[in-house]
């Protein structure tokens, strides 16, 4: 049995080191666009100490509840941390979970790193954790992410109307889902088969 879970072509899914990675992640939080594309919480820059504390807390919670897996997305070339990837809120009895994925610096976006990370995350969710479904959500104003998720096989399932209030108007929160069978049959099939050959 040979399957490569953590090494992709250009990136790897690696552990997050609260000590070493806090500085990098803190820099991302100084970009409001990064925060607003990824989270509904009020955007605010976080100090490295604050980031470190948050990382440690979520690692501790993940250890206790065992319903969450967090990875750092690193470039294989120089091991630089470029993003975060996780599977959260896993309901084991139902085999369902929710993914979150972000690429920190604007110049690292649009390079295909996110797509590579997404495929690896899905392979981990479906092949290693044996989940049955994976959810993802985004905001109406993040059209790029929504299109990108649909291109990777996700279907829009829920539209929480006017759930987010930003820039003086209300936006819908869109929840999408991807079933195990769909990834085998659908848009990702060729990638999937190639990777699991």
């Amino acid at each position, binding site marked *: 049995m040979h399957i490569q879970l953590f090494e992709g072509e250009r990136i790897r899914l690696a552990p997050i080191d609260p000590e070493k990675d806090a500085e990098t992640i803190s820099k991302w939080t100084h970009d409001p666009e990064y925060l607003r594309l990824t989270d509904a919480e009020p955007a605010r820059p976080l100090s490295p100490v604050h980031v470190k504390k948050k990382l440690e807390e979520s690692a501790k919670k993940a250890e206790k*509840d065992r319903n969450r897996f967090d990875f750092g997305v690193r470039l294989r070339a120089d091991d630089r941390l470029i993003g975060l990837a996780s599977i959260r809120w896993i309901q084991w*009895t139902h085999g369902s979970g929710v993914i979150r994925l972000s690429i920190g610096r604007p110049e690292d976006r649009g390079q295909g790193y996110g797509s590579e990370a997404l495929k690896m995350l899905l392979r981990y969710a479906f092949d290693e*954790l*044996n989940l049955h479904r994976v959810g993802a959500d985004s905001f109406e104003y993040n059209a790029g992410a929504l299109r990108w998720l649909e291109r990777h096989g996700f279907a829009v399932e829920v539209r929480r109307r006017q759930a987010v209030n930003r820039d003086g108007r209300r936006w819908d929160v869109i929840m999408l889902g991807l079933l195990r069978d769909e990834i085998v049959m659908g848009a990702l099939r060729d990638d999937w088969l190639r990777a699991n050959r």
Partner: protein
Amino acid sequence: MKHLQLKGEMVRLEALNSDTDKEVIARWSAIPGSWLLLDALHGWHRPATDSEQPVDSVGFRIHALDESDPIGHAGLFGICWPHHEAWLVIELDDRAYWEGHYGPDALRVMLRYSFDELGLRRVAIGVFDYDARIMRALEEAGFMIEGRMLDESSHGAHGRAGLVMGIRREAWSGIQ
């Protein structure tokens, strides 16, 4: 949707709580029960009631119907979620209830909980090979012997074999 019953014909189960059931848990831990092999190896007496969902174990008190004092305890431990497998333990601490089908009834209720609520695919249990009565009860419930742990010498059982018995969801569904 089926109506899930944590109740059989003789017993009902209630969730163990690590705070309120401290005394009961301590009392049980001190009693050499009948199915101790895997219990001793894994030590499941850590009810995970303070997490949102069973992390790797879940525990119940066993009550005879209409009685408030528990007669034993049951649980699943070593739950391996990606593969949907777990180890089962059932102990009737009160010997007065060893006769009268309380054990098999608790076993039925636990299997229903394992397969219908937790969605497990396989449940395993540890038993000593001299425990013919319990092995018979397990076989009647659909368990099959999967392997022998030779020379298992814990709890003074020198020269006895510890057996691993298991039941798969399909086998369980078949005899429902």
